[in-house]
Each structure stands twice: as structure tokens, then as C-alpha cells.
């Protein structure tokens, strides 16, 4: 591991469990014992079960909704429709365009139409079947390109274009000596978190409601729920319960308003839990994309220009499509020095399921395309693909095509150079190996015959946190007091722990800053101010900074007390619960604090960002994180089976806060990148999801996931707490293109669409071609086509 010194901390302490250590999870013991309470485990006496009636049609007018038969059923306590929404009838994080319950029209299959509360989940489900909705079925708009056309039906009053971002940089007429073009497509990926959407709403008897919920952002939920219930926010109190994974899929509301409506209507606690199929309809997905690229370069491999036309399918409602569209436009060229760029990023409404946040959003899609283009260009130039990237790597002080100066650190060159130096996995003879170490594995498909190895590289980057002028802050309250004769720090934030380990990070920061080992991270709820979203890899930075600053304030107040009492003027520190000055213990904290409590609240705002101007120029982002990946794959070219042998990665994290948690983020992020490369896709036909189950939507198993070698760089960001950078998303961005690059290397196929599944690979020539076909040659695009496959 390479370490670059971060800023020195004047009052750094040697208290155990501070930053830099692999501190264990405070929720670990209950999780391994099965006692951790997830939102689907909540239970109170007398609670009812809520259920949701969803539209079977992707596009239809609602003529009428008839609920009497359902209401008449024994055990049914409420049947609600749009007429029962007390307040704002629509919701949405960026644009409130999604009906709480549909009226007049449904715009996607699975849209919520009515609600039931009953005394047993089965009764609730049966009651849904008794609600009669008379639909006038309309022709759905099922792809983004159709939605763009003049004569497409307008799905929203504002039209079908949800957002468009153009980036114009340099000379629009720039010409180049060498040009490569490509078309790329990314299928719709699902977050596939394991814990289903769920929560428990409890009416308080005074018109308000308490909601226990798994979410990524309590306050944005609170605001939307309160609006739709027509209640002041303080009457809608949210508490985070156990979250079974998120990955972006819990940033939008699912059952929050619904459960509260049912609870207030029935004056009974109401629990809602989605099943797996419903979950596929109940949250947004990763945007599918179609991308056309043209790269121009000099003969010696300097990029001259990039032109890109990006079309994203936003589905029926806005969700976070705005931000995805902007991200894609700003990252479309990759982390390269591009003197001239013309980027068009289009986001369209369709009648497909709504798309929104998923790990790496916007950056994942374009990274697949720009990295494929770089490989294509390298091939055409006869250059090594890593050398081409090194030659064009962006550096601090340069300008991104969207006009922002590249801040330090931006170690694209370092991470690429280092990932190449990581030792390659041993190339065992394929024949005779344990078949579990061959493509197909336990499926017994090969003993080594037909197996070819390939290696591919990719590098990617993304913004950390919310961009383009959003006031992206977090609030933390820190209290220090003596309990049972020991100093205890309590950390209060509304930041959502979704599995990533923020509870550890918060405690580690508090220990480091306050020199007290006993730190309790309290359950997140809306009594503390907003912490912002657990997304965009931002919590360690933003909430981390809020916790750090609040601790610093508490510490300062203690030091004031010490100075008042002891007249010490030397630099003070706290270690293991004792005040230290110049290496001497002055007094234990207990003596200073006595019975008192010191408490400080901090609202941390990072450096302001700004919206892009009409040419797509502006200081839109406040931090960037970079990671490079190398994939080694083995492909059984006769059967189309792929085994990823190993992923190697280098990532700059600024400062390692918790090594084990960091490794977990990187390995988990790579697994999702591997899934997108090889298997994960929500298949949609005529607006309808065809594979809403874990048998039909495949995510990687432990047999699919290779070992990961990693090298971590710590180049401190001078503006960030401890110099740290967000770490959650970068592993998911370039791992996918690295795997596909390795597949191309092994098969000489173009593979412009992900996921790449067996049917895309089967039947290519048995022997490696003598020379790799060039992009202009007819063989290049022809390889892998059906007619050719039939010849083999």
C-alpha cells in the first residue's frame, strides 16, 4: 500500500479504534446472530398489513376504480385510491411527477393504483384481487429513440424530453488523422438488494405518524411524505430501521407514503413488505443507454476530439434522471485530456419502468463506451491500450471538457501504471485443471478444450456527492458526557447506514478527534437535521466532516475548561479519556466534565458547486474519485462460457479510514460490475418486465466471483476531512469495461452491448485468428453473427 501523508492533526490521539484501523461493526454481533432488526422484521401488536395494487399495463387510461368488493371482505380495514391522498398527489426527488396513486393514467407496468390494509398479508393480497380497475389500454412508448420522435405520444405535459445536456468544448470542426467510431448499448441493471422494500407506520393518535423505514435519505423521504399527507414535517417522524442493501434503489420512495396513509386512515400500525417480484416493480433501475461515439486522434495517439451522442431511457418518471444525464455528459470523454468535445446527452420519458440511482450512475454507462473506444483506437494505431491511456491521462491543472479545472489529486497515470504492474495470475495449463477453475465450473462443461484467455484494462472516474449547485450538506450532533464513571461520546446524525459501514466511520472519527474509546452511534432519525443521502459515495466525506467538526468544537470547549481551570497554555490533546499537555497527563475527562454534558451541532457544507451553462461548462463537481481495473478472463469459445480469473484494481481513496470496510466496498462494487458485464439485465418487452425474480434476473454467485487484487493510493484531497475520497462507486465503474475488454482480447469480437451472455459468444472460430481483424474489415463486425456461427 502506498501512503502519501495527509494533513497532520494537532490533537491526534492514540485512542484505540480511530481512523485507519479495521474497526469491527457495532451492528455485527446482532447481524450474525440474526437479531438485527431490518425494516421487514418490525412487529407491533395489533398491526395491519398493507398491500399495493399495481398496473398490469405500461400505458393506459384509468376509466374507473371499483373498491367495494374489497372493502366488504372480512379482515380488510381500508382500501385507498388517489382520492384518499390528503396532500400533494405526486412525489419525486428532483421533479414531483410521479403519482402517489395513479389517477386518470398509468405510465408504467407496476405503477401503484390502490392500497389495502388487512389483518393478514394473505387477506390483503386477496383483497387486491377484488379491486376492479377499468383500463383503456394505450400503445406504450417503449424506447427512448421512439420517445424522441415528433409523433410519439406525449407522456408528460412537459413533453418526452426529460433533460438534455450539451457539452461544447474547443473547436467544433476539429479534424483528426485517425478516427474510430462505435455504437454501444447498456442494458437495464437492477440494484437487487436483498432486503425487500418494507417499513412500519405507527399513527401517534394526534394526527401525526412515526415511520420506521429502510431508506437512503430520511429527510428527503420526510419532506415528500409530509407533503403528500398534508402534514407539517414535524408530524411525520422517520427512524431508520435495518437496511438490507441499497445501491441507489432506496433513494426514491417506495411504500413510505402508502404505509402512512393506511396507518392514519385505520388508526392502526401498518406494516408493508414487498415480495421479490414486487420489488422489481417497486424501485428504479439503472438507466439503459445507447451511445454513439467518434474519437479522433493524431497518428502518435494524442486525442484530438470526442463526439458522443448519448440516449438514456429514463422510464415513466423523473427520479434522479436529471443528475444521471448531467453526469453522463460530464464524464463522457473519460479521464482524458480532450481538447475538443461535442457531447449530447439526452434523457427521455418512456413507458418503461422508471430509472434512477444505481451505484456509479451516469459514469458507468459512458465508461463502458469511452473505454471501448480507447481500445479500438489503440488497436487502430497499433498502440498498447494502456500506453494510449497513459498518453492522454488527465492531470491536475488541466481542464475537463466541461470547463472545470482538474483538482489535485487526479492520479489517472499512477493508477493505470500501477494496475499494470500488479503481478498477473499464474497461467495454469487449462487442460487437466480442477474443473471448478474453468469456465462453466461445476457445470462440468470443459476440461480445458476451447478455452482462451484474455486481458483487458479500463479506467474510470466519477464525482463524489451531489453536484451542479445543490446544497449538499450534513448535520451532526456530538455529545460528550460521563456515564457510569466513564466518558462516552454519542453521535447523532440522520445518515443512513445501508451496510457500507458508515456507523464504523462515524465512531472512528469521534474516537480520533475526542480521544474517547466508548463511542455510541445513535440510531438515525429525523430529530437530527438532514445528513443528505447515502449515495454518490458521499457520506464518509460529508457526514464524516460534520462529525469531525462537531467533535472539534466539543474538544475546543473541553480545552477551554482545562485552560480556565489549570491555566495550561501548551497544546492540549485527549488520549484514552485523559487530557494531555506536552506529553503529561493533566486530568481525566471525568474530572473536567463532572456531571455536565458537552454537546455541539454542526451543519457541514462542502465547497459550492455550480450548474453548467448552456455550453455545458461550469464547476459542477466538488470531488472526483478514480479507479483502474485489469480483468483476466477465460472464455470457452465453443460454449460461450466465461470465467473471470481475476480482477486487479488500483484506487485512490485519499485516506484509508477502515481498511477492511474499504476492501469490502471494492470487492462488492466489482461484483456488481461483473454482473453488468456478464449477466445482469432486466429484460423488457412492450414495456413489461420479463424477469422479475432471482431465477430469471441473475446476479453473480460465489462461484462467479474471482479473487480481487488491489492496491490503494492515499493521495490526500486538501479540502476533504483527513484527505479522504468517497470509495463506494469507483469499483463499479471501470470493472465492467475491463472485463469486456478482456473478452474482446480473448475472442476478437466487437461486443458493443452489455451484458455479454453465452449467446453472444458462441460459435466464434475455434482457433484464434492469425491476426486480429481491423475495425474496417468486414470480418470485424461479421464475427459472431449468426450466419457465421452456423458455418463453424
Amino acid at each position: 500500500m502506498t501512503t502519501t501523508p495527509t494533513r497532520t492533526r494537532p490533537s491526534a490521539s492514540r485512542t484505540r479504534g480511530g481512523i485507519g484501523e479495521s474497526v469491527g461493526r457495532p451492528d455485527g454481533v446482532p447481524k450474525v446472530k440474526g437479531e438485527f432488526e431490518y425494516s421487514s422484521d418490525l412487529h407491533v401488536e395489533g398491526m395491519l398489513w398493507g398491500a399495493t395494487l399495481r398496473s398490469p399495463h405500461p400505458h393506459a387510461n384509468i376509466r374507473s376504480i371499483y373498491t367495494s368488493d374489497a372493502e366488504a371482505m372480512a379482515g380488510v380495514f381500508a382500501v385507498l385510491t388517489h382520492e384518499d391522498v390528503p396532500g400533494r398527489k405526486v412525489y419525486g426527488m428532483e421533479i414531483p411527477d410521479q403519482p402517489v396513486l395513479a389517477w386518470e393514467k398509468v405510465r408504467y407496468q407496476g405503477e401503484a393504483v390502490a392500497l389495502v390494509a388487512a389483518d393478514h398479508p394473505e387477506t390483503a393480497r386477496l383483497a387486491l384481487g377484488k379491486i376492479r380497475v377499468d383500463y383503456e389500454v394505450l400503445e406504450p412508448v417503449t424506447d427512448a429513440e421512439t420517445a424522441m420522435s415528433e409523433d410519439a405520444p406525449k407522456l408528460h405535459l412537459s413533453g418526452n424530453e426529460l433533460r438534455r445536456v450539451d457539452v461544447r468544448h474547443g473547436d467544433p470542426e476539429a479534424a483528426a488523422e485517425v478516427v474510430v467510431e462505435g455504437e454501444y448499448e447498456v442494458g437495464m441493471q437492477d440494484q437487487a438488494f436483498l432486503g425487500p422494500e418494507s417499513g412500519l407506520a405507527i399513527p401517534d393518535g394526534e394526527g401525526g405518524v412515526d415511520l420506521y423505514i429502510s431508506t437512503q435519505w430520511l429527510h428527503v423521504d420526510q419532506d415528500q411524505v409530509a407533503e403528500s399527507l398534508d402534514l407539517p414535517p414535524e408530524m411525520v417522524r422517520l427512524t431508520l430501521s435495518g437496511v438490507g442493501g441499497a445501491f441507489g434503489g432506496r433513494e426514491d420512495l417506495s411504500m413510505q407514503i402508502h404505509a402512512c396513509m393506511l396507518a392514519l386512515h385505520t388508526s392502526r400500525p401498518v406494516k408493508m413488505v414487498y415480495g421479490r417480484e414486487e420489488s422489481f416493480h417497486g424501485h428504479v433501475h439503472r438507466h439503459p443507454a445507447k451511445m454513439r461515439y467518434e474519437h479522433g486522434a493524431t497518428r502518435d495517439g494524442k486525442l484530438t476530439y470526442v463526439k458522443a451522442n448519448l440516449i438514456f431511457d429514463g422510464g415513466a418518471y423523473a427520479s434522479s434522471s436529471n443528475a444521471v444525464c448531467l453526469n453522463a455528459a460530464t464524464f463522457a470523454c473519460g479521464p482524458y485530456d480532450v481538447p475538443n468535445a461535442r457531447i449530447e446527452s439526452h434523457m427521455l420519458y418512456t413507458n418503461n419502468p422508471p430509472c434512477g440511482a444505481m451505484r456509479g450512475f451516469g459514469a458507468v454507462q459512458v465508461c463502458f463506451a469511452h473505454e471501448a473506444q480507447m481500445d479500438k483506437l489503440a488497436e487502430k494505431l497499433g498502440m498498447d491500450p494502456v500506453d494510449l491511456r497513459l498518453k492522454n491521462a488527465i492531470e491536475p491543472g488541466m481542464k475537463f471538457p466541461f470547463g472545470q479545472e482538474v483538482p489535485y489529486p487526479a492520479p489517472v497515470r499512477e493508477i493505470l501504471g500501477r494496475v499494470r504492474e500488479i503481478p498477473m495470475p499464474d497461467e495454469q495449463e487449462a487442460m487437466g485443471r480442477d474443473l471448478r477453475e474453468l469456465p462453466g465450473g461445476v457445470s462440468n462443461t470443459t476440461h480445458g478444450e476451447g478455452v482462451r484467455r484474455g486481458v483487458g484494462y479500463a479506467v474510470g472516474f466519477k464525482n463524489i456527492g451531489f453536484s451542479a449547485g445543490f446544497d449538499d450538506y450534513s448535520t451532526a450532533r456530538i455529545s460528550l458526557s460521563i456515564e457510569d464513571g466513564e466518558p462516552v461520546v454519542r453521535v447523532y446524525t440522520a445518515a443512513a447506514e445501508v451496510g457500507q459501514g458508515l456507523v464504523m466511520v462515524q465512531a472512528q472519527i469521534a474516537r480520533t478527534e475526542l480521544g474517547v474509546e466508548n463511542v455510541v452511534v445513535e440510531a438515525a432519525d429525523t430529530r437530527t437535521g438532514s445528513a443528505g443521502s447515502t449515495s454518490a459515495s458521499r457520506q464518509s466525506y460529508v457526514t464524516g466532516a460534520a462529525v469531525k467538526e462537531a467533535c472539534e468544537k466539543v474538544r475546543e470547549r473541553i480545552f477551554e475548561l482545562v485552560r480556565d481551570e489549570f491555566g495550561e497554555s501548551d497544546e492540549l490533546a485527549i488520549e484514552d479519556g485523559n487530557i494531555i499537555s506536552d506529553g503529561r497527563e493533566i486530568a481525566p475527562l471525568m474530572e473536567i466534565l463532572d456531571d455536565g454534558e458537552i454537546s455541539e451541532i454542526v451543519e457541514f457544507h462542502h465547497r459550492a458547486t455550480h450548474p453548467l451553462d448552456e455550453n455545458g461548462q461550469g464547476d459542477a463537481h466538488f470531488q472526483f474519485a478514480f479507479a483502474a481495473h485489469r480483468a483476466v478472463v477465460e472464455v470457452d469459445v465453443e460454449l460461450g462460457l466465461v470465467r473471470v480469473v481475476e480482477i486487479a484494481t488500483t484506487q485512490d481513496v485519499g485516506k484509508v479510514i477502515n481498511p477492511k470496510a474499504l476492501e469490502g466496498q471494492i470487492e462488492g462494487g466489482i461484483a456488481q460490475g461483473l454482473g453488468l458485464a456478464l449477466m445482469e439485465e432486466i429484460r423488457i418487452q412492450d414495456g413489461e418486465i420479463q424477469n422479475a425474480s432471482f431465477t430469471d434476473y441473475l446476479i453473480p454467485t460465489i462461484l462467479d466471483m474471482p479473487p480481487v487484487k488491489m492496491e490503494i493510493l492515499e493521495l490526500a484531497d486538501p479540502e476533504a476531512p483527513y484527505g479522504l475520497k468517497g470509495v463506494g462507486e469507483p469499483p463499479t465503474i471501470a470493472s465492467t469495461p475491463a472485463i469486456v475488454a478482456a473478452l474482446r482480447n480473448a475472442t476478437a469480437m466487437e461486443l458493443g452491448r452489455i451484458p455479454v451472455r453465452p449467446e453472444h459468444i458462441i460459435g466464434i472460430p475455434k482457433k484464434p485468428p492469425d491476426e486480429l481483424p481491423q475495425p474496417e474489415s468486414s470480418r470485424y463486425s461479421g464475427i459472431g453473427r449468426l450466419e457465421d456461427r452456423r458455418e463453424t
Partner: protein
Amino acid sequence: MKLRLMVNGESRETEVREGESLLYVLRERLGLFGSKNACEQGECGSCSVYLDGELVCACLVLAGQAEGSEVVTVEGLSEGERLHPVQEAFLEAGAVQCGFCTPGLIVAAHDLLSRNSEPTEAEVREALAGNLCRCTGYEKILTAVQMAAETTP
């Protein structure tokens, strides 16, 4: 109807409704929420329990089928405050993130180690292939099971 079964060594009796799965009974009737409800279609392994000594997905067992059976859930693996070595290893290795897959994986790993005390890496992977995890990328889970194999008596 009435259902009687042994759960974690205790005789339990509860009223159930036809159609309820063993998973539903464990969770909602007996308050044992450790077995998880990620798919309820036998696709993810998060509800793995022992049914008469065999590792099964509780979601696919109808309550009636479990009548008179002996069930051991994740809650039955630790003895009071003392964690089972598999549970210890999951914590030690950092194999727990959101934790939703963890109970099922721990029961499945427990089952593997009771049949094969020194599994190879390939054997661990094969044995746990019925348990989906979305957070960890499985690396630390693999490490945890190998660690547990070393410490399990």
C-alpha cells in the same frame, strides 16, 4: 390449524393459516426474524435453516410439512452471548455488510463445516453457491469460512 415443532431445541406450538410457509411461521408466528425473506422463492438462500438436520430454504416448506419436525435457525447456533465460531469468523473477516444474507450464509457454512471440516476453496464456493450476497463480492465470506474451518473443533 395447530402446528407443533421443535425450534432450536424448544418445543413450540402455534396457530397457523394454510398457505403459510415455515419461514412465515418462524418469523411472524414465533418471532424468530433471523431467517430472512429476500426472495421467498428458494432463489437466494437467505432463509436457510436446518429441517430435521438438513439444510433447506424455509420459504419453500409449507407449515404443514414441518409438523413434528425439528428446526434449527441462525438463532439456535450461538449459546447465549457466546457466538459460534462461524459467527465469530464472519465478524472477524469483515464478511458482514448489510447483513441480510448473513444468517442464511452462516447456517449454510455451519452445515458445510459439519460435513467437511477442512473444505478447499473450491468446495466452499460450491457449497455456498445457493446463497446470494449483493454487498461483499463474497471474498470476505470465503475468508470467513476458511477461518471458521481452522477454529471449529
